[in-house]
C-alpha cells in the first residue's frame, strides 16, 4: 500500500484503534489492513508490487542436480541380497571403508549370482567450511577400480576428475569436469575419453524459476545430443506450504521427464515423476514418499508398470544402520529383497 507521497506505510488495527506506523502524515492515502505476518513476508520476499529484483537472483542448482531432491525419494539405493559396509575414520580427514556384497542379478529364470568385496579410501582436506580437496578411491575384488578427485580452486571454480578403470580397455572411462558458479548461474564443461565433450548451463530467471540447457558431442560415434531444463522451486518463507520443486527436462535423444516433490512437513515429503520416451512411445509415472520416523527413514514408491519398492534405514545409537530393501515387479513376477548393515557413515 503506497501513500500519496510514495512513502511506504502500514496501518495496524489493534483492538479497534488505527495507528499509522510511519512518522509522517500523508493526505489522501488509502487505508487497508496488513497483518504483521504479511509485512514480514513483504520485507523478506520483496513482493511489494515492484517485481523481483533481477540484479540479486539466487544461484540455481547445477544442471545435473535439478532433480536431486525428487530422486532422493523416487530412486533409493535398492539392492538384492546381503550388503555389509564398514567405514573407519582414522582421523577427521582420512577414512577407510570395507564393503561386502552378495546377491544376484538378472531376469527371473536367468539369475546370476554376483558377489564382490570392495576396499576404499577417502581423503578430505578442508579449509573453514569449504572442502578444498576430496579424493576417493575404490577397488573391487574383480580388479575394477574407481577414482575420484575434486579440487575447489576458489569459491566459484572447481575441477573434478572421475575414472572407472577395468582390465578390459574398452570399458575404461575417464572424465574431467570444470564447474563455474556465478552469482545467478552455474556452468559446467565436461571432457571425457572417446572424444566426449559436454557443456551445460543453468540461469536463474526469477527468484523461483531457473532455466538451462546442455549440449553433448560424442566424438567416436559422431553423434550430438541436446537438452533443455527448467526448475521451479518455491521459497519456504513466502508460502505457508512446505518446499515445492517442479522440474522439466527434454532431451533430443527422445526423452521428456517431469518431476515434482513437495515437503509436507519436516518429517514427510512426497514426490512423483513422469518419463516419456517418444522414440518408442513408452511412458512411466511413479509416486513416492519419504517418511522420517525418529531414527528411521522409510521410502516407498509405486509406478505404472505395477512395480512397488520400499527402502528402510534404521539408525541405532552405536553408529550401526540397519537396511531393508524390497522391489516387487508384479508384471514380470520379479521379486527382490535385500538386507544390509552399515557401520559408520
Amino acid at each position, binding site marked *: 500500500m503506497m501513500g500519496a507521497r510514495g512513502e511506504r506505510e502500514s496501518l495496524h488495527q489493534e483492538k479497534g484503534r488505527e495507528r499509522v506506523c510511519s512518522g509522517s502524515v500523508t493526505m489522501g492515502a488509502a487505508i487497508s489492513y496488513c497483518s504483521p505476518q504479511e509485512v514480514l513476508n513483504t520485507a523478506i520476499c520483496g513482493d511489494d508490487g515492484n517485481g523481483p529484483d533481477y540484479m540479486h537472483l539466487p544461484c540455481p542448482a547445477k544442471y545435473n542436480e535439478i532433480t536431486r531432491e525428487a530422486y532422493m525419494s523416487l530412486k533409493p539405493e535398492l539392492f538384492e541380497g546381503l550388503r555389509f559396509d564398514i567405514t573407519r575414520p*582414522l582421523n577427521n580427514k582420512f577414512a577407510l571403508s570395507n564393503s561386502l556384497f552378495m546377491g544376484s542379478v538378472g531376469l527371473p529364470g536367468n539369475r546370476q549370482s554376483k558377489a564382490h568385496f570392495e576396499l576404499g579410501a577417502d581423503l578430505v582436506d578442508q579449509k573453514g567450511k569449504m572442502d578444498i580437496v576430496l579424493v576417493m*578411491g575404490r577397488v573391487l575384488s574383480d580388479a575394477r577400480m574407481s577414482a575420484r578427485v575434486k579440487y575447489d580452486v576458489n569459491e566459484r571454480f572447481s575441477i573434478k576428475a572421475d575414472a572407472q578403470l577395468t582390465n578390459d580397455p574398452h570399458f575404461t572411462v575417464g572424465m574431467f569436469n570444470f564447474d563455474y558458479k556465478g552469482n545467478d548461474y552455474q556452468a559446467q564443461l565436461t571432457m571425457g575419453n572417446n572424444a566426449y565433450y559436454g557443456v551445460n548451463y543453468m540461469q536463474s530467471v526469477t527468484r523461483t524459476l531457473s532455466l538451462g540447457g546442455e549440449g553433448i558431442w560424442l566424438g567416436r560415434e559422431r553423434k550430438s545430443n541436446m537438452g533443455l531444463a527448467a526448475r521451479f522451486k518455491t521459497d519456504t518463507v513466502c508460502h505457508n506450504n512446505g518446499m515445492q520443486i517442479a522440474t522439466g527436462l527434454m532431451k533430443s535423444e527422445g526423452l521428456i521427464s517431469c518431476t515434482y516433490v513437495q515437503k509436507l512437513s519436516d518429517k514427510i515429503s512426497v514426490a512423483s515423476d513422469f518419463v516419456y520416451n517418444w522414440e518408442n512411445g513408452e511412458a512411466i509415472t511413479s509416486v513416492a514418499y519419504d517418511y522420517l520416523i525418529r531414527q528411521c527413514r522409510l521410502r516407498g514408491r509405486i509406478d505404472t508398470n505395477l512395480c512397488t519398492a520400499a527402502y528402510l534405514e534404521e539408525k541405532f545409537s552405536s553408529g550401526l544402520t540397519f537396511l531393508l530393501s524390497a522391489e516387487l515387479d508384479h508384471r514380470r513376477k520379479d521379486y527382490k529383497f535385500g538386507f544390509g548393515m552399515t557401520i559408520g557413515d
Partner: protein
Amino acid sequence: MAKVEPVGKNKMLKEWPTWVLKKAKTATHYGFIPLIIFIGMNTDPKPQLSQLLSPV
C-alpha cells in the same frame, strides 16, 4: 589403396600419447589407493599403523 605404416620417428610421434595414457592408466590402477593411504597417514593428527591394519 594400401595403408602406409608410419616409419621410425614419425611412428613414435604419432603413438606417444597412446603409450603415455596406457602407462598412466596402469599406474593409476595400481598406485592410486596406496597414494591416498600414504597421504592420509601423513595428515594431522597422524594415525598409527595399527589403526590402519586393525579391523576395528
